[in-house]
């Protein structure tokens, strides 16, 4: 039995074990968060399983982001407990946490003019000094290719558009290769193509045995891509279950205080639409139709969507 003296700057970090699908990687028990007088979250019980995409949905101010921040440890809990890989979240140090969960916040601001490649490479920093470091180049390259930021690799992050920034930041989070992926409105600034791309990547990531928690506003995207959805209302968990179980017309209308229709899609899945009146149009300006061009575009689009679904 040898006695190893540990220097504080030379600590050993516990590397994660890959969870099996269905393992409870993250567990919230009776979590409550108060900021000042206001009760943001109250009695939230939630378990996140490996191999699953869990969407957090709810109206503005329901506490979705706070819940995510509580999981990451950025917001102190006023009561309850969060368990990460069977141990209290507090018992992990920063590097160990970074090896276990990667977080994409709503807005990613970078002060210094780093190139996109540098930004993505930053995602690999927790693995410095471990065997995983060997895969850095491959993973960074792969993450950038997946999110289609390869052409932006040499550009300065601050010069990117909102959607491009979103993709670059997502690429970095992906490169962290953690078994838990926490995304706070990743699709906010993205166009529809990249929204779908991102959700597809999230699903594949989950299929590789990881847990993905994503906050989305688009209910139909949540219904289409997630295994389970958690519906938050006024800081409480209203419902947790498959989209078919949770997204009912009455439930959504009640939570969002707005009439919402839920219809089964003929190809499987759900169509979620707010009830809208039929409007009478007033057309004063010019209006041209380009039937041929429209047809050509449609053909191209169908090809793209086929690729997206695969």
């Amino acid at each position: 039995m040898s006695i190893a003296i540990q220097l504080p700057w030379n600590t050993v970090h516990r590397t994660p074990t890959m969870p099996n699908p269905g393992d409870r990687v993250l567990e919230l028990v009776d979590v409550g968060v108060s900021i000042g007088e206001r009760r943001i979250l109250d009695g939230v019980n939630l378990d996140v399983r490996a191999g699953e995409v869990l969407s957090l949905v709810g109206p503005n101010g329901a506490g979705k982001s706070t819940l995510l921040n509580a999981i990451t440890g950025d917001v102190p809990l006023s009561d309850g407990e969060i368990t990460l890989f069977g141990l209290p979240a507090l018992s992990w140090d920063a590097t160990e946490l970074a090896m276990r969960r990667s977080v994409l916040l709503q807005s990613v601001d970078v002060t210094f003019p780093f190139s996109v490649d540098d930004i993505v490479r930053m995602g690999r920093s927790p693995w410095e000094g471990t065997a995983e470091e060997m895969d850095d180049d491959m993973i960074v390259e792969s993450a950038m290719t997946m999110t289609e930021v390869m052409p932006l690799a040499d550009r300065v992050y601050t010069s990117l558009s909102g959607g491009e920034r979103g993709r670059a930041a997502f690429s970095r989070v992906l490169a962290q290769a953690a078994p838990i992926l926490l995304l706070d409105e990743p699709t906010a600034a993205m166009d529809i193509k990249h929204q779908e791309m991102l959700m597809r990547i999230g699903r594949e990531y989950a299929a590789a045995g990881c847990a993905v928690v994503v906050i989305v506003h688009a209910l139909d995207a949540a219904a289409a891509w997630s295994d389970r959805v958690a519906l938050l209302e006024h800081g409480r968990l209203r419902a947790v279950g498959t989209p078919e179980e949770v997204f009912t017309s009455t439930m959504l209308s009640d939570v969002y205080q707005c009439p919402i229709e839920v219809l089964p899609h003929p190809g499987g899945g759900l169509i979620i639409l707010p009830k809208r009146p039929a409007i009478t149009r007033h057309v004063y300006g010019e209006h041209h139709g380009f039937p041929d061009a429209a047809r050509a575009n449609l053909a191209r689009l169908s090809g793209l969507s086929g690729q997206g679904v695969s």
Partner: protein
Amino acid sequence: MGATNGNINGTGTIRRTIGRRIAVMIAALAMTCTAVFAADAVRVIPTADAAAKVSANVDGGSLNPDGDTAVELSGSGFQSVQGGFGGIYVLFGWVNDPSGGSWRPSQGGITGQDYRYMPDDENNPAGYDVFVAFPGDSTASAANGGQIASDGTWHATITVPGAKFTSYDRSNNPTEVDCTAVQCGIITIGAHGVVNATNETFTPLSFAAAQQTATQNDSGDDSSAADAKKTADDAAAKAKAAAEAKKKAAAEAAAKKKAQAAAAANEPQTAAEEKTMSTQVPTLGIAGWLIVAAIIVLGIAIIVLAAGVGGYLAAKSLLLGVSPAALDKEIAKRERKAEDVRAREALKSAKRKRRQYQRLLKEQGRADQAQSLVEDAPLPIPTPRQDGGRNGDPAAATQATQVIPPVTEASAGGGAGTPAGAASVAGTAAGTAAGMATGTVAGTATGIRGFFTRHSGGAADKEGQQ
């Protein structure tokens, strides 16, 4: 052997020095004991005469209350210690209990309180105090009163300063003594602080002349009463001035005497101890005091350190008891340590296995070589190495997988090649060691790694298509 001998010798010398030290300590103890006994013995020595006596012969017949008077003294029946330290001090002064003797230093009498005497200026002695030394005393040179003869007699002349003088106690507080009001006389006590009950005497002397002048004044001419009063006043003023002057001189003298006495006590200390065997307060040298200071500082440091460590432990346990989060962190810290140890052990065992396997390979190769030599003796060149490699290659590969279960790609690729099996095995071992050191990363890698590898390849193809 030599080394062990040396060791034994070394411990031997250490033991010897310790023994020597103990012997020295015992000797010192014995010496102090004998010193005490000797002191007792000195006290018990019977004196020549039953009691010490001092007879005084006042110069001019009577003591002058306003000025110095020389008094010839001769003592008898005193104890004379050949080579003893000190002797006697012959002083003029007052004692509180002439008949009882409670003033005596040997009875616990204290100067300035139980007896008071006229101090002298030691640098410029006026003869107020007389030191009569023992024959052979180391400080005999300072004796202004000669020596105590072996038959216990001595002769000296003391100067009586007048009827009024200022005495000082041990704290140097002055006390006025008026010998016209109290009974003064000649005091003899043991010198240099060496208490000697035999040599403590008090011989009363009276200022007959003072009484005479007083009576004279009283019975003097009444006609010149005013004059008389004036002269009396003058005399009083004079006396006062004289007294003040004396006081000043006496203060100086006392201070100096003290200093000198201290010096005298320090210098001949060792000699005195040996000679008189009297008990004295042991004085430490500078080194001694330094050691004492060091011990005190060390003790304080140990106490402070203990308090600090104890406080830290107490605070920590309190924190761990109070805060579950802190407890979790502590547990995590311990787990990390344990994991580190596990990783080290895994690395060690992997190395050991590799070594074992290499040895096995070598022995196998040797055995194969021997066998081939026996079996294929007629063959010109057996090429044992290649032969062994070919024979052992599948075996080596299987054994490698048996010994180290997770076979990395590197080893799988290397194992197929013809180069010596040992190299590929070493590669395998290193790979596993690295894998083990970083925990169970291998499992994580397959899932996520697969995801990334799939995508990096697929995406590239897709881009190529586009």
